[in-house]
């Protein structure tokens, strides 16, 4: 019985890891300092777990979670509500439709796959902001954000893969 409880507890813990890591990404993005320098936008850390687990375990990273993570991002960043949420949901939709293509990538191809997702997120944000304020926004910030997010995915992906194998992967008994 205890063993069963442990298994259930462990499963619950492993199931929440993707969402918790995304929330950690939201928190890191909005911390009051940047290790990348003053004028480089914070990378979209929250997008990395969303992309990763949307590919490998969409049951743990549902559209609803992507939306909720986006809403929390909106709250913490102080911007107009719904923009990050819409951006993450749009990215999720693209990944969801092209899952087979994205999931088959490895090495630099995987980086290219994530860069595509980041591009969708940045473009969605840019379009919504331009519509929201009814003027064309400068694109330089979005380009920087896209570049820095894509580059940082390389080390972060290794960490996510390790966490997946170590904590999330072994408990996928139903697959």
């Amino acid at each position, binding site marked *: 019985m205890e063993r069963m409880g442990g298994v259930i507890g462990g499963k619950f813990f492993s199931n929440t890891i993707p969402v918790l890591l995304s929330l950690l990404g939201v928190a890191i*993005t*909005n*911390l*009051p*300092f*940047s*290790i990348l320098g*003053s*004028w*480089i*936008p*914070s990378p979209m850390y929250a997008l990395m777990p969303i992309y990763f687990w949307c*590919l*490998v375990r*969409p*049951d743990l990273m*549902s*559209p*609803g979670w*992507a*939306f909720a993570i*986006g*809403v929390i991002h909106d*709250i*913490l*960043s*102080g*911007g*107009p*509500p*719904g923009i990050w*949420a*819409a951006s993450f*949901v749009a990215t999720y*939709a693209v990944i*969801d439709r092209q899952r087979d293509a*994205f*999931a*088959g*990538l*490895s*090495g630099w191809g*995987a*980086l290219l796959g994530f860069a595509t997702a980041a591009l969708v997120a*940045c473009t969605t*944000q*840019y379009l*919504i*902001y331009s519509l*929201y*304020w009814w003027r064309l*926004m*400068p694109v*330089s910030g*979005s380009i920087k954000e896209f570049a820095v997010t894509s580059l940082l995915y*390389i080390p972060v992906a*290794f960490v996510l*893969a390790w966490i997946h194998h170590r904590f999330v*992967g072994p408990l*996928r008994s139903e697959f």
Partner: protein
Amino acid sequence: MGNGTWRIARSRGGAHLPLVIVAALAVALILIGKAQSSLFDRARADIMDWMRPTLVATRAPMEGVGRWLGSIGEIFVVYQENLRLKEENARLRQWHNTALVLDDRIKRYQLLLHAVPDPVLSSIVARVIGRASHPFLQTMILDAGKANGVKPGQAVADQRGMIGRVFLTGQRTSWVILLTDLNSRIPVSVEPNTDQAIMAGDNSPMPVIETLARGVQLKDGDQVVTSGDGDILPPGIPIGVIVTDGSRYRVALFADQTTAQDVQILDFKQKPEHLPTASQNDLPVTAAGLAPAAPAASQGLPPPQLQPVMPKPVFQPSATPQAQSAPSADDSDNDVPNAGDQ
């Protein structure tokens, strides 16, 4: 990055919201946020108050890591930096003395001119517990709110100059829109000619000078301060210096808003101009040369009849005691600056 090294789950399960509904929710949230921003702001302030302890707790270790990472490169230039700082310190000491002398002189001039005193400025020191640096958003979260007397619109500055202004307050937290944010617009004054302008952020490190009067030419290095127009911000807070950028003017900010950790929230209280308390000598009757009314007048006695008062001659023989108290023409020019109004 080997996404293809493990099996891919094909199903999201049946309990999840469909993508279409979630997308519709996101769009609805944007529209509601645009129409009823105050609703979302209240919720945001409440949530941030609730999250404040977590942000404060995570701030310290992360700040330590940030400082450590930032100091790695400085190790190699510490000697040159020390020499430079010593030289700068000596120069600043000279300027400090000059500033004290000038400050005293200004106070004396203000006293002589009966100038309206500068507005009272008190401040609250707050810590930065969150900072959003996104392509279209430059905001900051401080750990002081309504409970500490923070109100929307107040200026936020560090020891070097202005950083931004408060736009939303919770009980224990407040949000600051930085001067570089796309939506930041503040009235400024460019010294030395006090040219009035609007400084607008465009998410670049240097905000742009807008709506400058036609024909006004600014020079690199001209100082930019808050103008205080509209009584929203206190006048005279240093902001930065003018830098020419092609046909436009930009402002190189004094404050480093991206690294500031402790800031001041300036509480701008426009001091009401109270009239001085009337003394016996200021009463019109006394000024007209009559004796003040006896205290008995207020004890139910009939009011005194008004008598026409003959104007006094300006010059009196010096023997009379009244003439000794009357100021000469020269004296009245010197001591009663507003005599013409009487």
